């Protein structure tokens, strides 16, 4: 326990997640085993949370429940990004996905007054079965490939903490990636105009 607390203080991620870590430590039967690092424990917590909330998102019949579990999923991914030392992406994930995009989705659900579905899936059952089988095949293929040829990368790069900062992201955004940045701003403008035209009540003919 003492070594764990020392490790906790040495780890830069420790401060925001101290309570999660301690709660997980108490709930897991770790006694007698070597100290589990903060990164791996947080990975386990957030990975299980991410998978559980993703499954909840696609199985709930009430779309508002789907939206709320999707917000939880985005927060779990934020945690995973923090275990990867990608602070800027983690912040943008909360701002853009859990904030802006989900507000839009919930707004449309409320506007259209979509209620609970009597049946979640529709169409021919063969399509559902086939699609699910293909999806499972995909994850099987990736797992088999990774098992046969592991990437061999077992820990984060030495400069991982410096490349994820706002400073480093901003540096390359306004130098190397300046043209894509301008292009994406144009795309957002086009999408904005397109959305307004599509959602307009009366589109004049001719």
């Amino acid at each position, binding site marked *: 326990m003492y070594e764990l607390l020392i490790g906790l203080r040495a780890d830069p991620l420790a401060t925001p997640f101290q309570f999660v870590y301690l709660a997980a430590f108490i709930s897991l039967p770790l006694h007698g085993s070597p100290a589990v690092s903060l990164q791996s424990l947080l990975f386990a917590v957030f990975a299980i949370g991410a998978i559980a909330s993703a499954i909840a998102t696609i199985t709930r019949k009430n779309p508002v429940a789907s939206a709320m579990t999707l917000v939880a999923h985005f927060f779990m991914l934020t945690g995973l990004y923090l275990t990867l030392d*990608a602070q800027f992406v983690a912040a943008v994930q909360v701002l853009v*996905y859990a904030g802006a*995009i989900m507000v839009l989705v919930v707004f449309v659900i409320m506007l259209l007054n*979509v209620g609970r579905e009597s049946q979640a899936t529709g169409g021919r059952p063969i399509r559902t079965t086939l699609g699910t089988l293909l999806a499972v095949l995909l994850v099987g293929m990736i797992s088999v490939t990774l098992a046969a040829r592991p990437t061999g990368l077992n820990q984060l790069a030495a400069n991982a903490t410096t490349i994820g900062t706002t400073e480093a992201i901003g540096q390359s955004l306004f130098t190397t990636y300046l043209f894509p940045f301008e292009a994406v701003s144009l795309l957002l403008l086009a999408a904005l105009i397109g959305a307004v035209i599509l959602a307009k009540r009366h589109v004049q003919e001719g």
Partner: protein
Amino acid sequence: MLPTSIPLDYYLILSALLFVTGVIGVVTRRNAIVIFMSLELMLNAVNLSLVAFSSFLGDTAGQMFVFFIMAVAAAEAAVGLAIVLSLFRNKQTVYVDEVNIMKW
């Protein structure tokens, strides 16, 4: 038990699982808004593997891609939900199996 540091493969398998969850959502659900949310799940799964590669290889490129994917996802959200809105206005439904005018 868990290893002391998580290898890249774990993140990639997690990302594959989340992507497949999204695929199953798109294939099986009939509510257009839920299909839309499943698309977001797939985009986020790809983002996770990009960030994982970026951090494990020590290269900013992966995180830049995630930044641009988020911008495209925001544009897609705006246009996609506007389409759902005008679909509802014309057909009074958001269920994709009831929209079959272009079905052969």
